[in-house]
């Protein structure tokens, strides 16, 4: 089973109308339970709170009313809960050991505290790649490739993960 780390912006682009909906849907379609597919999603519990805050910001920016934002949040809680129940997505809790591991990302990559925690969660979860729409991420977080969902060859990059590495001498 190949584990894909999903950054919070993947969820935002899946729930809110915009130009990136198709690619976000494609990512979610990939996720299947262990016995039924090749890919499983991994994300950090903190991402869910971040999504709530992003919806509140849409209210503050005058995009939607508070009540509409609450509907999105209700839906997201149920949708993410279902994905977890169906074992298509794992919500990883933040532990002290992950916070300690975040230190190397903060000093090594100058990441924000939350980004560093996500990187630590991804690394400790053994993901094959870190998927984000944020182009500011570097190409690698230590040995873990960062796949930009904005890039033209993104789908190809994910599909390449299915090809076993060449171990011939």
């Amino acid at each position, binding site marked *: 089973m190949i584990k894909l780390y999903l950054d919070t912006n993947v969820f935002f682009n*899946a729930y809110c109308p915009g130009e990136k909906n198709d690619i*976000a849907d494609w990512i979610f379609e990939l996720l299947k339970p262990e016995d039924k597919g090749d890919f499983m999603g991994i994300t950090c519990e903190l991402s869910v709170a971040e999504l709530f805050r992003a919806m509140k910001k849409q209210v503050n920016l005058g995009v939607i009313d508070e009540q509409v934002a609450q509907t999105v949040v209700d839906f997201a809680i149920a949708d993410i809960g279902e994905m977890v129940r169906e074992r298509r997505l794992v919500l990883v809790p933040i532990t002290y050991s992950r916070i300690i591991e975040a230190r190397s990302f903060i000093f090594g990559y100058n990441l924000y505290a939350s980004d560093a925690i996500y990187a630590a969660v991804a690394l400790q979860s053994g993901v094959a790649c870190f998927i984000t729409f944020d182009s500011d991420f570097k190409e690698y977080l230590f040995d873990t490739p960062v796949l930009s969902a904005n890039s033209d060859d993104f789908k190809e990059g994910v599909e390449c993960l299915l090809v076993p590495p060449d171990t011939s001498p």
Partner: protein
Amino acid sequence: MTTVSVSIDEEILKWLDQLIKEGVIKNRSEAVRGGIYSFVKEQLEITSRQELREFLKKKQKKSFQDGAEAIKDVRSEE
């Protein structure tokens, strides 16, 4: 997590336990949680991400931020 007691008909429970035996559902708690998630979506009358986006298109007063921009804003609030 809080533990609650719920009343369930014997026949439904037998059916549920059969699904657990077959590996469709992990345990009784998971079945109840799954039912609640489905119920929430039904109550919202939005059962898919596509439906949610259609609903939002009707309600939005201007364009949503792009996901990367929105989340970057949230993270820069730290």
